[in-house]
């Protein structure tokens, strides 16, 4: 059985495409699936840094599609999880170094070997975006609850539909439940109303993401992280399970706090 190619895209930069790719890739591997993450942000590669694999890069995506290097030589095995691989972007080349056709072939080759191929898409709607979506079967659109992000996400969904991608799901990232409650932030309904796509999950704003990212560790492996829990749930949903959304009005009581401290101490 062949795997699925899922492109993680957003249009706008800085909304969490790379973080989402890294965490979903890791979480899916934790569920026992074989996953490869492909960084298509040629010239601005990040996924390797977020995964803490930067110092293992020998060959990159351009070497594979144009340089005659075998896929097996370029794929980097994750240092923590069996069955998780990364195909890094080239840093010294440009987006045009890869064509949409080459990406299609690459994705086709990868999904023979893996259950999930997660493609980390660059920001923007130019060549890099066209390459990233070329071989995709499905798309995950990441948006934060800001009008500019929703506008770009809407444009992206339009372009995905035009490219023939029918299954486009939304991840709302960095939502702040308290601000939503006060009416100071767009809520989930507002965003779905405009984008009219299926909701795959909601990830709350969480400082542990920044801490993990800087350490080169996906937040899904950090204990007690809300964002990590949200990503684990999304991964289970991608894996075909029915999982409820992470409850957002989570106010951490004193008991919870003690419990969490205890949990942390016991690890």
């Amino acid at each position, binding site marked *: 059985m062949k795997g699925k190619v899922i492109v993680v895209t957003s249009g706008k930069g800085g909304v969490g495409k790379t973080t989402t790719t890294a965490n979903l890739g890791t979480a899916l591997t934790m569920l026992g699936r074989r996953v490869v993450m492909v960084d298509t942000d040629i010239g601005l590669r990040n996924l390797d840094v977020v995964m803490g694999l930067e110092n293992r890069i020998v060959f990159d995506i351009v070497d594979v599609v144009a340089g005659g290097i075998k896929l097996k030589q370029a794929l980097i095995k994750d240092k923590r999880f069996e069955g998780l691989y990364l195909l890094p972007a080239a840093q010294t080349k440009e987006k045009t170094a890869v064509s949409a056709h080459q990406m299609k072939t690459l994705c086709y080759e990868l999904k023979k070997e893996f259950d999930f191929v997660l493609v980390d898409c660059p920001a923007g709607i130019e060549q890099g975006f066209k390459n990233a979506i070329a071989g995709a079967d499905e798309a995950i659109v990441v948006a934060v609850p800001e009008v500019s992000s929703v*506008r*770009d996400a*809407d*444009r992206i969904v*339009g*372009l995905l*539909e035009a490219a023939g991608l029918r299954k486009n799901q939304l991840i709302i990232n960095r939502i702040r439940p308290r601000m939503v409650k006060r009416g100071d932030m767009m809520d989930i309904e507002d965003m779905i109303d*405009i984008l*009219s796509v299926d909701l795959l999950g909601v990830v709350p704003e969480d400082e542990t993401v920044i801490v993990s990212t800087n350490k080169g560790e996906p937040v899904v492996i950090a204990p007690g992280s809300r964002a990590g829990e949200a990503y684990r749930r999304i991964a289970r949903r991608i894996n075909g399970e029915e999982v409820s959304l992470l409850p957002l009005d989570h106010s951490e009581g004193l008991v919870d706090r003690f419990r969490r401290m205890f949990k942390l101490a016991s690890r």
Partner: protein
Amino acid sequence: MIVITEDVVIRESQGGIIICLNSQDSFPDLKQQLLDKLKAFDDLLIGVQVVLDVGQRKLKKTEVLELKEMLLEQGLHLKKLISRGKSVDLTGKGGQVEVVNTPTTTLKNQEIGSIEETILVKRTLRSGQRVFFPGNVVVLGDVNPGAEVIAGGNVLIMGSMRGMVHAGALGSEDAVVAAFRLNPTQLRIANHITRPPEGQASKGNEPEIASIKSGKVIIEDLKL
């Protein structure tokens, strides 16, 4: 004055523009130059009346029709044609300024004919997507912010209208815009441009209709 070039000059005049064609190039070249020029204006000229000054050039009747058609495709109306040449086809006399009204009846008929046509857009229009049609447009879905619907006739949105809509874009002031939820970023009818009042939360829970009444764009509840 908007644009000056050697071959094609576009000037403003009362209620429209004058396009002067000074080029002595072949007709297809001239047509292309004019088209390029018009395209540079994007949508700014939609619905505008055009007076075409072809200078010393001789134009055949078929060429005039071709130009008229091309202008209409860009949303412009050819109202008058000025020719100084000895054009037999255009009843022009040598050296004299002749203003030839293009047969307005055929123009009107064309307009009405095209307005009767309606297209159905059976999806949500997203940011960056644009629909242009010389007749009526019906959208079975939403029009999101950043999307545009431009119609020569009326526009009916069976969903939320949050983007830009231009009804009667070819000059028809009778055109209306109706939507299930009318919250456009900008609403245009013929050459009237309106936007929702600043800072006022949209009412937006009833179907509404926008039309021109005594020279102003009025939005009312849609009651049938």
